[in-house]
């Protein structure tokens, strides 16, 4: 009843073309990048501006109807999965760049602007927006804020959090919060970190001021091929330990290399067990000395083949293989399941060997593509969704990989978020009082519990259900690995 009433109110408030209820029109919104989960939304609202957002939130608040915010729907954890009984608020119409300040190097944008279009809009001024998720042509900056998205250049330039200066947020109670601004600090307690990565659970982000960086005058990409995974892992540690912070440091394993090579022909060595892609940037002098050092470190750590690219076309080609790795893997398997654990870098080699063992145990293939410099793994589990039993095995393997990450001091998600997907492993990462603290915090901004309910933080009931399933006689998984 209240849902129908809310839909009527939204229809009478927003223009006709901004409200969708027809199954044909709403079906495209039934899933995000995590396609294993689907739910057709009863209504999709497409606000044109902040005022429309406020109206929809007010209606939801008054009728007690939950609301799920959606940007471009590229999220990989089901954060934007619609609710059967809720409104889906889609921000793609709010896609204007409101202001670019060339002197202060900032841009103020609406949430529906795509990540890449910010850099495109300021490129002629010699500036760019640094965080570059592989999905950057499609994903929205609002979604990036909600997930604290990362990218291949985040090792040096930080995550979304480090590049956001100000936010405007609408709460379900009808308040607009202005957080930060266009400076470095603001008086009072800084709430930006709370909203960055909050997965639409606290409010709707309607305006974002980002920091723009000057494009580096010089860049070079090195590709190092290795015969085994461990040496490449050690090379990563060696590079960081020597005081170089590359702009990007990425690793791919044999299966990923072959898939990417077949797809984009980047010239990757097809017979390598692993490749490292390392980009350095800065002044000519800085780049020259960093490249010399990294080359040397690759050699001493057993690289069998090193290639370098300094021309834009060559560099782009090398990156293209990496950035297209997910779709490339999508070509060699009917389905794949992307994990997102992060570990302390020194466990890279060990974890990769363990993943291989686990994959063999579950009789599944895993391709590894990851942000090695950050220790952020993206094992892609290959499976066939039409086979229920395989899907089940893939999910089981995924959980075991994440448990492994937590066991070595890591986390279940580095950049893709918890969404609906990682509620189970959240139970192994957080204690009951910690989860309760999260819920008390959600309540501060969302008293009635209407903002994206059921996502990101598992309820205690949920955890006690699955804890019974997973902890076998109080034994932790993988006792052979060091813990701290």
């Amino acid at each position, binding site marked *: 009843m209240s849902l129908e009433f809310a839909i009527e109110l939204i229809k009478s408030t927003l223009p006709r073309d901004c409200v969708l209820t027809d199954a044909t029109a709403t079906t495209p919104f039934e899933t995000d990048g995590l396609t294993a989960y689907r739910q057709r939304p009863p209504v999709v609202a497409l606000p044109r501006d902040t005022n429309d957002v406020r109206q929809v939130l007010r209606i939801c608040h008054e009728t007690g109807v939950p609301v799920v915010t959606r940007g471009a729907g590229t999220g990989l954890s089901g954060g934007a999965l619609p609710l059967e009984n809720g409104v889906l608020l889609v921000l793609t119409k709010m896609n204007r760049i409101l202001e670019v300040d060339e002197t202060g190097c900032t841009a103020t944008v609406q949430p529906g602007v795509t990540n890449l279009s910010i850099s495109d809009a300021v490129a002629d001024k010699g500036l760019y927006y640094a965080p570059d998720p592989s999905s950057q042509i499609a994903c929205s900056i609002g979604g990036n804020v909600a997930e604290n998205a990362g990218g291949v250049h985040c090792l040096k330039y930080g995550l979304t959090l480090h590049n956001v200066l100000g936010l405007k947020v609408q709460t379900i109670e009808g308040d607009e919060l202005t957080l930060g601004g266009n400076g470095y600090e603001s008086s009072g307690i800084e709430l930006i970190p709370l909203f960055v990565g909050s997965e639409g659970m606290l409010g709707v982000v309607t305006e974002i001021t980002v920091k723009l960086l*000057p494009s580096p005058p010089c860049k070079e990409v090195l590709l190092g091929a290795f015969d085994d995974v461990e040496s490449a892992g050690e090379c990563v540690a060696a590079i960081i330990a020597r005081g170089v912070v590359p702009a990007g440091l990425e690793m791919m394993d044999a299966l990923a290399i072959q898939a990417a090579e077949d797809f984009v022909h980047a010239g990757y060595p097809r017979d390598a067990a692993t490749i490292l892609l390392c980009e350095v940037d800065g002044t000519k002098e800085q780049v020259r000395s960093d490249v010399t050092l990294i080359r040397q470190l690759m050699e001493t750590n057993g690289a069998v083949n090193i290639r370098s690219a300094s021309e834009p076309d060559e560099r782009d080609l090398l990156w293209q293989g990496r950035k297209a790795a997910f779709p490339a893997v999508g070509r060699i398997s009917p389905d794949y399941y992307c994990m997102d654990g992060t570990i302390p870098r020194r466990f890279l080699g060990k974890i990769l060997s363990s993943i291989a063992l686990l994959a063999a145990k579950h009789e599944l293939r895993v391709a590894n593509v990851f942000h090695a410099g950050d220790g952020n793994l993206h094992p892609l589990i290959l499976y066939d969704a039409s086979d229920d039993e395989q899907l089940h095995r893939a999910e089981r393997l995924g959980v075991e990989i994440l448990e492994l990450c937590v066991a070595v001091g890591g986390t279940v998600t580095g950049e893709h978020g918890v969404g609906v997907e990682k509620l189970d492993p959240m139970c192994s990462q957080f204690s009951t009082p910690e989860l309760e603290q999260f819920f008390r915090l959600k309540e501060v901004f969302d008293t009635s519990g209407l903002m994206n309910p059921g996502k990101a933080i598992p309820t205690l009931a949920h955890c006690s259900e699955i804890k019974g399933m997973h902890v076998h006689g109080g034994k932790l998984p993988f006792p052979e690995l060091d813990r701290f």
Partner: protein
Amino acid sequence: MTQPFDDSQRLLDSVKQAVAQKRQLSILGHGTKAHYARSTHGDALQSRDHVGVIEYQPDELTISVRAGTPLTVIAETLDQHNQMLACDPPRFFGGGTIGGAVASGLSGPGRPWYGNLRDAVLGVEMINGLGERLTFGGSVMKNVAGFDISRMMVGSLGVFGVILSVNLRVHPKPEIERTISLDLNWDDAWSVLCETIAKPTAVTATCYWSGSLYLRLAGNRASVEEACSSFPSNTEIENDVWVHLRDHEHSFFQSSEELRRTWLGRGLQPQIENDESNLIEWAGAQVWSFKVHGDSAALGQRISSEPFNRSSAAPSTESKYMRRLRRAFDPHQLFNSDLLL
């Protein structure tokens, strides 16, 4: 050097006792920032004995330290591996603990280029107002599991709870650092400052005061030398000017008048008289002045201008949510209850 010591059980017991006895607590490290923020409500809860580096992994660029660990000890530890805490929080009177630095959230002169402490925090362990020991974040570079409570602790002046330990990202030290001074009028200095944001340069700190622009240049030898030579007629000065500025020991700060801090948006030129009464850091985004001389109201379009004293800070516009937020962590209002009201 202070001996490592785990005082967390006593801190936890004290909080639990305060809950049971309905008493309030004022959390204290070294007390070096008492002039900036100091709670006077309730029993003092000293975190200064909870000291020590829990784990330092130079290869990972991470360090985990107990809250009472002196900033100097952290700096010495990192120095052994040629690393540093990039945001360089002030060590007023040469002291200060990392817990106090996190709670006050102050940054050194390199703020625009090296980020602040919030940017460096990866995780915290804390005691909330229910006497629960909680861990948020972790020690890895990327972590989006759960709300980012650890970074929210930065600058919160202890109102959410007692910080027990902090995991931080550290940075390799640049190969070399040099400081140059240029005699410039304010408008010319401003053009140079704008370049430090809009162009890739070797600059990692700036200060304009009394007709001189100081620039810190860092990186490898070749790029720093090139940067130096791009500024004609510069004078090389000692690098320790940045330490003096950071710790407010520079002669500018020697006054008994009330010190004020003004923040401006990036790219907005502070409107100042060309005299000694304002000291401008962060490429123009932070201006220091004294109440009588520097009329900070005239500084132009600004974010905030207030005394360098948070004990008397005005209520923030988001005070409704702020009150609820405090209650969410500290329902009995145990911690620093007179701060940030």
